[in-house]
């Protein structure tokens, strides 16, 4: 081995703490990059092949009723390769606990040879001609502990229909199981899907020879013009009462997964780049210090006849070996982790098949990119090698110019400082670049730590505001079919009610130019007591008699402001589209909705006095009392929402912890390295202080004060950076389901500051050994390089 390489190895050994801490940052960066990218590809491939196997549809149309012949007519539309009908109805399920409300979606299995949305049988048999048999979606079966051979009993039109569970299945449209857009979180024990034979479904739901949903496959070559095809479908089916047309991109489960994948994709590059930059800056500072300390050794090398390139290589090999060693660990970790991550996602996403592969391309990209990065930062750090003249390097370096720092000119402050504080401040000011890096590093640590804390607070806020301030009803009751005001009266008879008001909820397509969005429009009394509308400027307002109020997220996505006119597109048969003015925009963090006066909305639908549900405040046992009441489709209680939220919180606590750990590692690496560098750069200075009679603790205290002061500055600068980062995250998370408000509570700032101080302190303690080991006599005497 070349002697310079031996020197390199010993150099690494002597600075192993720094070497390891930088390597850990690189390992983190590269592991996140490789494993997230691989997970992303694995998931994408798994989903693709699952869709392929199960023949997942491209367009789904919900209609009032459509005969088979009309579905076959759809083949006349160019680009449609398959169209199949099915019956799909949500009904209550009989369960032991009368207070528990569980609903199942009964779906018929098409008879066609090659069904669209074919079920993937995980266990048991397929449902074919059997009448009293059903196949159950796995998530629901698992959540409720139902297995093959068990009996379940849905209520259909007031009657009990016991069914044998003969199969446990997966379905491409319920990879992510949610009842509808209004459910914020999956609750697989409260809502499930069961599949039955077509004849059975048609007979019990009264759809003989007809369906209420159409599944459509579009040719791959025609997918680009899917919107035109959808328009044609809508025209052709108009008389069958089209309620909704959902294309795959808008299908709930698919959309949720794509959003998940999208954020995975973003994370897989953003986090690594940030970490690599930090590693690069540490390498840069560290190597420039090493080169400075090695000045004489470099002079000797040059005197011996080593050229600049050879010497530069020697130092760059240091940073490159950090990169390469980091790469080796990262590759091992990523291959393991991408399996684990893919597995976790699979569990969460409920795909019964799995495609995991090792994508070497990401390893290659990652290693090449990291190596280039390390070489460049090494080059930047070691570039001073070129400036060292062999003859000069033999002479001791001229002392750094000592001059008065800015603060000294402010006499009233400066004169009050003690001697050691003066040294501290002079040191900081003299090494501005390093001080700046430390401040930026701490600011970064602060903001990275802030993100998870912000997230955990914001989610609890989100729910508290949505269910405590925006909506104040205890129960949200949906009827199974539209009724008139008598429904309210009857409800009042069954349960003790403090407050009740009607609601009318229908899906509409909101059009504004070429932008459109299908949302639930909710009709309310103008003087509603259970919805509190607040403008983005925090002023509360009420519904107007005419006109429509949009949630903020909806208004943003359609680019609408107050006073604009929009077109309400109706899915009911033979109803004209309506123009309506937007009279208000309200803050709403969960879901996208529009609100109208209930009478005005009834007019649009053409059914005066119609209601689809009720909003109730009551301390009565509403769920239990209404359980056996006919015509009630769904009761959503705020209590249930809270519970499912708690479960959701458990899940995010892990990711919060992980992010905190990342922030901690980054903070540690920065503070540890900068402190070590600052100690070794000033060995002579400390030694002189020791000779003057300072003890080790006093010297250590000086460094601690320096770091403490810079930490304080770092945290102050970190506050706006953290705000920006949270803002960015909130925007990235903004979806149809969440709109995240960026209000960081004061307590979050404090918790983050404490966490940051802990990270800094740990790093600081790790460097204490250096000071205690300092042999000041040697340091003063020897100039051995």
């Amino acid at each position, binding site marked *: 081995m070349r*002697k310079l390489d*031996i*020197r390199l190895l010993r150099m690494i050994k*002597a600075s192993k703490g720094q070497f390891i801490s930088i390597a850990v940052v690189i390992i983190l960066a590269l592991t996140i990059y490789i494993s997230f990218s691989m997970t992303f590809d694995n998931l994408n491939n798994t989903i693709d092949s699952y869709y392929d196997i199960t023949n997942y549809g491209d367009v789904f149309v919900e209609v009032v009723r459509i005969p088979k012949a009309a579905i076959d007519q759809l083949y006349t539309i160019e680009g449609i390769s398959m169209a199949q009908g099915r019956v799909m109805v949500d009904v209550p399920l009989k369960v032991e606990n009368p207070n528990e409300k569980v609903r199942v979606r009964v779906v018929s299995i098409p008879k066609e040879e090659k069904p669209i949305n074919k079920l993937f049988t995980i266990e048991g048999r397929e449902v074919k001609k059997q009448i009293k048999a059903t196949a159950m979606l796995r998530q629901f079966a698992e959540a409720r502990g139902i297995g093959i051979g068990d009996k379940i009993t849905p209520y259909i039109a007031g009657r009990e229909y016991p069914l044998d569970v003969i199969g446990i299945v997966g379905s491409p449209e319920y990879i992510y199981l949610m009842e509808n857009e209004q459910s914020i979180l999956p609750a697989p024990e409260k809502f499930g899907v069961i599949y039955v034979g077509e004849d059975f479904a048609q007979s019990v739901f009264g759809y003989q020879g007809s369906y209420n949903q159409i599944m459509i496959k579009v040719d791959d070559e025609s997918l680009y013009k899917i919107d035109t095809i959808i328009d044609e479908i809508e025209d052709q089916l108009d008389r069958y009462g089209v309620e909704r047309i959902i294309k795959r991109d808008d299908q709930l489960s698919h959309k949720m997964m794509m959003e998940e994948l999208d954020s995975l994709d973003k994370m897989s590059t953003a986090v690594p780049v940030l970490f690599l930059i930090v590693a690069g800056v540490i390498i840069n500072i560290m190597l420039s210090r090493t080169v400075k300390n090695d000045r004489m050794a470099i002079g000797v090398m040059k005197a011996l*006849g080593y*050229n600049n390139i050879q010497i530069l290589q020697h130092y760059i090999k240091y940073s490159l070996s950090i990169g390469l060693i980091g790469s080796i660990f990262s590759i091992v970790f990523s291959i393991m982790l991408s399996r684990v991550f893919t597995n976790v996602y699979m569990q969460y996403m409920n795909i019964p098949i799995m495609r995991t592969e090792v994508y070497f391309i990401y390893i290659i990209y990652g290693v090449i990119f990291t190596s280039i990065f390390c070489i460049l930062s090494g080059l930047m750090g070691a570039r001073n090698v070129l400036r060292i003249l*062999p003859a000069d390097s*033999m002479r001791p370096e001229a002392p750094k110019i000592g001059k008065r720092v800015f603060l000294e000119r402010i006499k009233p402050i400066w004169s009050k400082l003690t001697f050691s504080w003066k040294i501290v401040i002079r040191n900081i000011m003299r090494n501005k670049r390093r001080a700046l890096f430390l401040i930026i590093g701490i600011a970064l640590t602060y903001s990275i730590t802030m993100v998870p804390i912000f997230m955990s607070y914001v989610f609890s806020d989100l729910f508290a505001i949505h269910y405590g301030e925006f909506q104040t009803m205890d129960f949200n009751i949906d009827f199974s079919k539209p009724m008139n005001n008598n429904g309210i009266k009857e409800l009042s008879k069954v349960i003790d009610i403090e407050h009740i008001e009607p609601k009318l909820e229908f899906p509409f397509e909101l059009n504004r130019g070429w932008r459109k969005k299908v949302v639930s429009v909710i009709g309310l009394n103008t003087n509603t007591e259970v919805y509190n509308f607040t403008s983005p400027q925090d002023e509360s307002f009420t519904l107007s008699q005419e006109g429509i109020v949009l949630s903020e997220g909806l208004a943003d996505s359609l680019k609408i402001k107050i006073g604009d006119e929009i077109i309400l597109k109706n899915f009911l048969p033979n109803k004209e589209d309506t123009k309506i003015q937007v009279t208000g925009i309200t803050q709403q963090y969960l879901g996208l909705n529009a609100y109208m006066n209930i009478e005005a909305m009834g007019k649009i639908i053409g059914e005066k006095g119609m209601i689809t549900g009720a909003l109730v405040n009551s301390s009565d046992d509403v769920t239990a009392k209404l359980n056996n009441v006919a015509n009630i489709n769904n009761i959503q209680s705020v209590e249930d929402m809270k519970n499912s939220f708690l479960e959701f919180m458990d899940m995010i606590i892990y990711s919060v912890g992980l992010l905190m750990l990342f922030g901690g590692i980054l903070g540690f690496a920065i503070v540890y390295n900068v402190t070590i560098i600052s100690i070794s750069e000033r060995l002579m200075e400390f030694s002189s202080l020791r000779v003057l009679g300072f003890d080790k603790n006093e010297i250590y205290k000086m460094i601690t004060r320096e770091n403490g002061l810079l930490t304080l500055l770092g945290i102050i600068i970190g506050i706006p950076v953290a705000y920006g980062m949270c803002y960015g995250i909130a925007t990235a998370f903004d979806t149809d389901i969440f709109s995240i408000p960026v209000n960081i509570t004061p307590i979050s700032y404090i918790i983050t500051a404490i966490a940051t101080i802990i990270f800094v302190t740990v790093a600081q303690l790790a460097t204490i050994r250096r000071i205690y080991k300092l042999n000041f006599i040697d340091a003063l005497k020897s*100039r051995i390089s």
Partner: protein
Amino acid sequence: MANNSLMKVENISKIYQMGEVEVTAAKNINLELYQGEFVVILGPSGSGKSTLLNIIGGMDLPTEGRVFLKEEEITKYNDKRLTNYRREKIGFVFQFYNLMANLTARENVELATEICKDALDIDEIMKAVGLEDRKDHFPAQMSGGEQQRVAIARAVAKNPLILLCDEPTGALDFETGIKILSLLKKINKELNKTVVIITHNMPIGDMADRVIKMRSGELVEIKENKNPIPPERIEW
């Protein structure tokens, strides 16, 4: 000796710019070095002797004047050729040894030899400097004299044309210093290497074939020693 000319220094001057002041470190120096001679350059500190040595060794360039190695003008060399010149032709010994702290004695020598073409056998050199038992020690485990012997071994093992020693005994006690001088003399005699020592220590001049005296950057006297005394008889 005149026909044995190895190096020729013609009219060199060196002016340093130190902040706003100009410092003349060497002024119009003319000098010839011959193959196989032992030269001592004497002068107080600041007399320009290190500057002269650095220029001869290709570590520094003169502000004016020319330096020749045989027929070649090294002051015309670019950086690459200058590096090569240091690599193949010159051996340096420094006052503070300047060994690599994290390489052993032997590795320090190898560091120099692995980049030159006709390096000498390292084990023989280690033996010649009397360090065959200490070759796996690190500099910090060796005395100053031992470290300086490693430094000499490092310079000699390259098999250079000329050995340039900058105050080689400056950091050593008297007895160790004498041993180092004997070693240098031995290398001069047995390997027929030209050795140039700079020192402010007058008595060392007695062992040289020629003594060159410098003061304030100028060469003030060149004295030939008809009968140089062996280093063991030097006293200071």
